[in-house]
């Protein structure tokens, strides 16, 4: 196993081989969840700081469990939304973190580029757990791993990203990752929620979900920030839900074995009809389990294999 990276900032840092290395390792770690004692000593004595400057219970808990299953110590550093708005200086926060000498830092931040910024200042491994609209590489890896577990191969597969693409770091990272894996990609959203340069992305673009869903093997529903309607991007949440929510009629058009994903947290009834989120086609809970396994794999790789600066 070879891991040449000091940081995970975006999917573009990774080669297809790197991605498969993560998947292989994640497969081994996923199995641990079914043991009576869910702990291995691999990272004993390592410390991982979880710096979540934007609230996220789900991702933070996932990293926390992943680190603890490998016996690393975790330290949480919260930064409330309000102190950020007061212009708290991220450099000072970074230097404070540096003084604690962590082995790895997991960062979630509202500002695009925050992870990259910290990686320039800190001497530890930096793992981006989501920055602004920019990137969410561990989410993309877990989405990939999840489908890797149910599909024999990524070739000839079509994945649709349905929902707010423009403001989604998940969409950006998923597109990069699945493109590297050879998956055919589609995106579908109202034009107001598609980025201006979407024609340069390696995706087929749709504004009509009926066309977009036809024949796809998997659909990743993306969360709609409910305040989008206030900024003139949508007439109403109701109309959005009526047209763009994943609903049984749309599933009729897909491959019969279609898989449904959602990075969570879900707005049931807005981007996905509640019954579908709980259906047998849904991988939403597998995504959560896959998240822990993938993050264990990443922490393992970074803390034992990565080159030290």
């Amino acid at each position: 196993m070879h891991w040449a990276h000091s940081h995970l900032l975006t999917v573009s840092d990774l080669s297809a081989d790197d991605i498969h290395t993560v998947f292989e390792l994640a497969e081994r770690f996923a199995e641990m969840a079914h043991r009576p004692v869910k702990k291995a000593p691999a990272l004993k004595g390592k410390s991982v700081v979880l710096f979540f400057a934007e609230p996220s219970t789900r991702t933070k808990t996932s990293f926390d469990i992943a680190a603890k299953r490998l016996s690393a110590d975790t330290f949480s550093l919260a930064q409330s939304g309000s102190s950020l708005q007061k212009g708290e200086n991220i450099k000072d926060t970074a230097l404070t973190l540096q003084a604690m000498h962590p082995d790895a830092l997991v960062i979630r931040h509202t500002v695009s580029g925050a992870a990259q910024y910290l990686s320039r200042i800190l001497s530890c491994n930096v793992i981006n757990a989501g920055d602004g609209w920019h990137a969410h590489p561990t989410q993309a890896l877990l989405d990939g791993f999840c489908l890797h577990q149910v599909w024999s191969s990524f070739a000839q597969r079509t994945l649709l990203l349905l929902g707010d693409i423009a403001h989604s770091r998940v969409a950006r990272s998923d597109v990069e990752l699945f493109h590297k894996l050879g998956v055919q990609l589609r995106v579908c959203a109202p034009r107001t929620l598609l980025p201006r340069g979407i024609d340069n992305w390696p995706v087929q673009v749709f504004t009509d979900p009926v066309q977009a869903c036809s024949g796809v093997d998997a659909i990743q529903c993306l969360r709609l920030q409910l305040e989008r309607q206030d900024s003139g991007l949508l007439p109403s949440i109701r109309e959005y839900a009526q047209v763009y929510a994943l609903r049984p009629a749309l599933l009729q058009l897909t491959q019969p074995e279609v898989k449904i994903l959602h990075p969570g947290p879900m707005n049931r009834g807005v981007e996905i009809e509640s019954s579908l989120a709980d259906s047998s086609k849904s991988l939403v809970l597998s995504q959560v389990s896959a998240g822990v396994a993938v993050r264990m794999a990443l922490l393992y790789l970074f803390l034992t294999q990565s080159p030290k600066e």
Partner: protein
Amino acid sequence: MSAPECAVRNGRWRDRLVDVFIARGHIVDLLPADPSRDLGHLDCIDAHGALLLPGLIDAHTHLREPGQEYKEDIASGLQAAAQGGFSHIMCMANTDPVNDCAPVTEFQLHKASATHPHGPFLHPVGALSKGLSGKELAPFFELAEAGCVALSNDGIPVADNHLFRRAVEYSTGPGLPVIDHCEDPGFSAHGVVNEGLISDALGLPGQPSIAEAMQVSRDILVARYLQIPIHLAHISTRESVELIARAKQDGVPVTAETCPHYLLWDQECVRGYNTLAKVNPPLRTRDDVLSLRQAVSEGVIDILVTDHAPHADFEKDAPFAQAPNGISGLDTALSLTWSLILDQILGIKDLCRLWSFAPASLFSLPVNEFCAGSPADICIFNPDDSWTVQAKDLASKGKNTPSMGQRLSGRVQAMMVQGRLVYARE
């Protein structure tokens, strides 16, 4: 004609070597250089064959005083101007407090004459609206009398079309030109980079190029309707260039400026969240750069300005979206323009027009035309002196330029304003 008091020898002007004789701050004679000529008692500067340029005029700088002297103050800004080859600079009103009344203008002029009594000279631009709020007109007569040479809401574009129209009309009373920051603030929607490939890749809110063109269109319509000139600040897009070209053909009284950074760099400079390249309007596409270059050489864009916007290092050392907009420009403007001459995009005549003759006529400032009677504002520029931009070499407190660490060709050797040496490189 007065007897010469001093001379600049061996300077290159229009492909000839000349000796320039100066008295009482003005040129009294210009003769072919003659090393054997005995200048006896005269105070002489030897240009050693370097280029002589008229003193440059920067119609758009931000000097931060009063209010944010840690970024720049009038003394350091004027020092950067001297070192950059400028004899006159115009400073925008977005200080704290805003320059919307005589005491602020007078304070700035006092600081300038106290620290740089012999130049470069400062010409404040008064606010278009009180506090730059875009709600009430500032007192234009008061500002003119205190020494302002133009009016602008630069930094905070006026969204209210009615108020903007009234401002343009009222400005004719004191006779001050209006400079407009061309950005439809509703349409630019907090974009921090050009909308498109870069905003997509970096996950940053994008500013559409047509947010600028929309305001340009408005200003053209207002200028045509009122038949009153409006000057359009820091143009950065092809759409704007096309609108301005057509308006000029139709005889609409608009003029326009752009900055060296829009002629040299495109949005790719921002990759890696490079905050040194964060500027408003944002760096655009290569296509926009090419369109602007053509517009500048053809005179569609009338003048060059620096939009000198100094910031402290710690402010630029931040995640991209949180860093302030602006490039520090006075120290490097001429060397950057020189690179356009080396690339044969501009000629030396264009340089003199864009940086000196045209801004002087637009804002009624004195200009050196290298003939008897002209003010002796002379920039001695050595095109062969290449240098690597380093923080310690910039006189401005703002070290925020994407050319930091880059090698530039051509450097100001000395600067004379009204016959006095205000800067000489050791």
